[in-house]
Every structure is written in C-alpha cells, then in structure tokens.
C-alpha cells in the first residue's frame, strides 16, 4: 500500500510536468495548426539556460530569465518561420518543426558536451515524507507550481479575451479574422505561452531525482507528446488528463518493475507509447479530441 501511494504521488508529480509540456503542444496546435516537434529542444534550451544563468544571476533570477529565454525562442520560431508559412500543408509544417528541432538540439548538445550541468535548486535533493510515503521536495514543489499554472491557464483560457480569441480562431480562423481577431497575434501568444510552460517544466525536470541537465532531458518531451495525443491533440483538458495518465503509468511500471520482469527491464520507458497506442485503438481521436479535425 505504501509503495502504491508513493508511486501514485510520484506519478502525479511527473504527470503534472508532462501536462505542462503537453498543454504547450495543444495550444500551438489549436492556434497555428502545427504539430510542433520543437518542444524537445525548447525544453533542453530552458534547462540549459537555467543551469548556465543560475550561477551568475542566482537561482531565482536565473530561473525567470531562463523561462523567458525559452518563451522568446518559441516566439522567434513562430515569427520567423511558422508565421511565414501560413497556409502550408500541416505535414510540411510538422517537418519544418522537426528541422528546427534538430538544429537547435545539435547546437545545445555541442554546448553541453559530455558534462552534466547542475542547477542549484534551493530546496536541494531532500525528500518530503508523510509516514512512509515519500516524494522528492523538488517534485512536490513541481506539482504545486504546475497545478497553479495549469489552473491559471484554464481560467485564462475560459474567461480572458485571449482565451476567447484563441478558441474562436481555433474553431474557425477565417471567421475569427472577420471579427477583427488578429490571427498572427493569437498564434504568437500561443507559442510564447507554450515556450514558457516548457521552460517551467524544464526547471523542475533537472532537479531531484534527475541528476541534472544532460541531453536526455530532450526525451521527456517525447513522452509528453503521447500525453497530448492520447488526450486529443486539440483538447486542453485532454492534455492534462493525458499528462497525468502517462506520468502515473510510467511511475507504476517503473515501481513494479520486479513484478513486471517478464516484460523485460526498462519497461517504464516504453509505457507512455503503449498507453497511447492502446487509447488510440479504442478512441482514434484521443480521449477528448474532436472527431473531425478538418472541415470541408
């Protein structure tokens, strides 16, 4: 039971981080109709910037500037490339984002080299315990921050002018434009928000129990992607549920590894994809996705 609760708690905290990244995927898809594969390198850029800047600037300022850099990088990608290709087929745009991702990733790997950069989280590597159920303090704080950010995001999405513009243009871009909504601005803002969320996710991903910033941070985004897909790529609620689902599945698969030994070691790493495929077999457009994404 203790183990179960422990794994559940860790799964939720991991899932909350996935949800931050998956929300980014979803709003970019809604606003720009692009399946953005740039998130892996944006995540790594966030982690790298925070690690490099927290030494000269101190942790908190370094974190803020690092998140801002990630958001600006996302904005630059949107303004310089995606916005200029408006109207191009979805597939071409997706391939373009893969290209951007590879360029950015290669540069970051070159800079990081074989080091593991350390981010000096003030809360350190300690863990928080209630009885025998434990979670690293970093993950606990991550869960709280992610929870607050996700709540803020959903409130803004539902009530703010930005949210209404965003949902209107996601549903029918041309009509939204006819109502005076500036599609370019909606798209740019979506990328900024997605970049900032990825930056925050990076901040916590490189703390305990993960050792530090190494290129493997990149693979986390690859696990948030199934989270967005299985929730339904055009559903923000789906991204949250998908993130939590993937986080928990991964945590349980890793925790009960010994019982799952017949499936082989390292089963936890492939669980996100197995869950995604299983969900898509039953619901091809994801748990909360719209059935028909393209209108005639």
């Amino acid at each position, binding site marked *: 039971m203790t183990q179960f609760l422990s794994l559940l708690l860790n799964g939720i905290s991991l899932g909350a981080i996935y949800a931050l990244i998956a929300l980014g995927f979803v709003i970019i898809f809604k606003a720009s109709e692009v399946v953005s594969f740039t998130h892996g390198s944006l995540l790594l850029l966030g982690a790298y910037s925070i690690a490099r800047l927290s030494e000269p600037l101190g942790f908190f300022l370094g974190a803020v500037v690092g998140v801002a850099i990630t958001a600006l990088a996302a904005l630059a990608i949107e303004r310089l490339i995606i916005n200029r290709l408006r109207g191009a087929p979805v597939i071409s745009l997706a391939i373009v984002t893969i290209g951007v991702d590879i360029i950015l990733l290669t540069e970051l790997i070159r800079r990081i080299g074989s080091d593991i950069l350390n981010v000096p989280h003030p809360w350190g590597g300690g863990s928080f315990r209630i009885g025998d159920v434990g979670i690293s303090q970093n993950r606990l704080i991550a869960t709280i921050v992610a929870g607050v950010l996700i709540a803020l995001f959903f409130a803004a999405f539902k009530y703010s002018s930005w949210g*209404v513009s965003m*949902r209107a243009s996601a549903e029918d871009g*041309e009509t939204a434009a*006819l*109502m*005076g909504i*500036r599609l370019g601005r909606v798209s740019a803002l979506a990328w900024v928000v997605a970049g900032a969320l990825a930056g925050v996710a990076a901040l916590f991903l490189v703390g305990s129990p993960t050792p530090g910033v190494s290129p493997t941070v990149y693979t986390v985004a690859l696990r948030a992607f199934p989270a967005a897909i299985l929730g339904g790529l055009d559903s923000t609620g789906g991204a949250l549920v998908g993130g939590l689902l993937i986080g928990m599945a991964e945590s349980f698969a890793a925790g009960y590894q010994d019982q799952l030994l017949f499936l082989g070691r390292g089963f936890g790493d492939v669980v996100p994809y197995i869950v995604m495929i299983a969900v898509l077999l039953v619901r091809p457009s994801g748990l909360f996705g719209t059935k028909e994404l393209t209108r005639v």
Partner: protein
Amino acid sequence: MLSIDALHVTYGGAVQAVRGVSMEVPDGKVVAVLGSNGAGKTTLLRTISGTLRLHRGKIESGSVRFDGAELGSRDPAQTVRMGLVQVPEGRRIFGRLTVEENLRAGGMGSRDKAAKAKAQDRVYEMFPVLKERSAQRGALLSGGEQQMLAIGRALMASPRLLLLDEPSLGLAPRIIGQIGDVIAEINRQGTSVLLVEQNATMALGVADLAYVLDVGEVSLSGDARELARTDEVQRLYLGHDSDQPQKRSAAVSGKTLSRWKQ
C-alpha cells in the same frame, strides 16, 4: 461611403471571378447585390473585408475605397477597426463557444469597453432570444437563432457599414422575413448595409439600391423598387414566369423551378 471602381479579381492568377465591377454604397443606405451561384458576390465581399488572400485571390486592377481609404491591401482586423464588418455566408458561428462568448469574440476588434457594453445591450435588445440563451453553446441554437447570433456578433464591433453574405441561406420563409426586418432596423439605427443575396424578394424589399451581378459583371443596377419591376429580375430572381401574381413563399420555390426547366 464604400466605393468600388472597375474592380478585377482573380483566383490563382487564372479564374476571373470579378470583372470590372463598379459599385457605390452611399452613407445610411441599404444596398443589395443579387446574383446566382458563381456570379462573384462572395468574392466581392472577400475583397472588401480583406479575406481574399486566405483564398489565394488577388486584386488585378481597380480599387475598393472606404471613406476614401483604399482597402485592397488591408487585413481583416484592420478593416474591422475601420468600421466595416462582415457576417460570413452560412453564419459560421463558433459552435463550441457559448452565445455570450460568440458576442465577445465579435467585439475583439476594439478595446473600447464602454462601446462594447453598449453594443451588447443593443444586441440583446434587438435579439432577446440571445439573452435567454447566453450561456448555451452556439451549436445548440436553431438556424434562425444562429443567423441572429451571427448578425449580433458582427454588431458587437459597432460597424458603420455591415456586410451580409446571404443571410437567408437555408432558412424558412417566415424567418427570412424576420431577417429582413432586422436589417431594416439596423439601418434605421444608423448603420449602412451591403446585402448580398439570392433571395431577391427579401433583398429588394429592404434595399434602397440594388445591383445584379452576372458572371462577374454588373448587368443591372439602380433603385431597388424599380429594379424589382424589370423583366429580367422578375424572371430570374422573383420567379414570375407568367403574369400570374404570386405570393412570397411561392416566389422562393418558383426560382428553383424555373432553373430546372432550363
């Protein structure tokens, strides 16, 4: 107010959709544009509202001026801020947004909160059913209510000139009559209207001036009441093949009948 001069528009550099159209919408008037499918009506509206580029269309020559300012190169958001708002064909309300959110979306072009609150009061006063259903999703409204919402949404931007693209499309004759009354009321409150229609009975009933478009060119124009009496309009749009007087509802179906006979 709106003045179109010798306008030529093509799609993809090949298809000529509008060929040398000239048109005037005087301040405070309702102007109707009649024409069958493919006459260039929608292209004309796209050119005015700035959505032509989204459809790979291009102005080859001629000009579209609103209060003297050239509209050709502007994007839709700029056009809205100049006071020119289009209600798209087929209503195109945001089905997943509530009625109230649809209206909010309509006011996104301006930052003037007081003006938007006033516009919303006006919309709710004009369409009380929208107020009753303000928390419902747009998709749940009936066709007629959706058209009211589409018009109300456009009024949220407090336009000086309202462009309507076939507001009668797919609606019952009784509802079409109501739409006509709504257009007259909007005009009475000081908004000029450019009404593109296939339903000539309603359009000519509410309009001051009218133009008939035929394969991208203006074939007839003039005072709406006079135009309604001409043979061509009677035959093509009002369905009066013989001298038999017909009722309004019969006129709507008569149009379809005459087309099948050809």
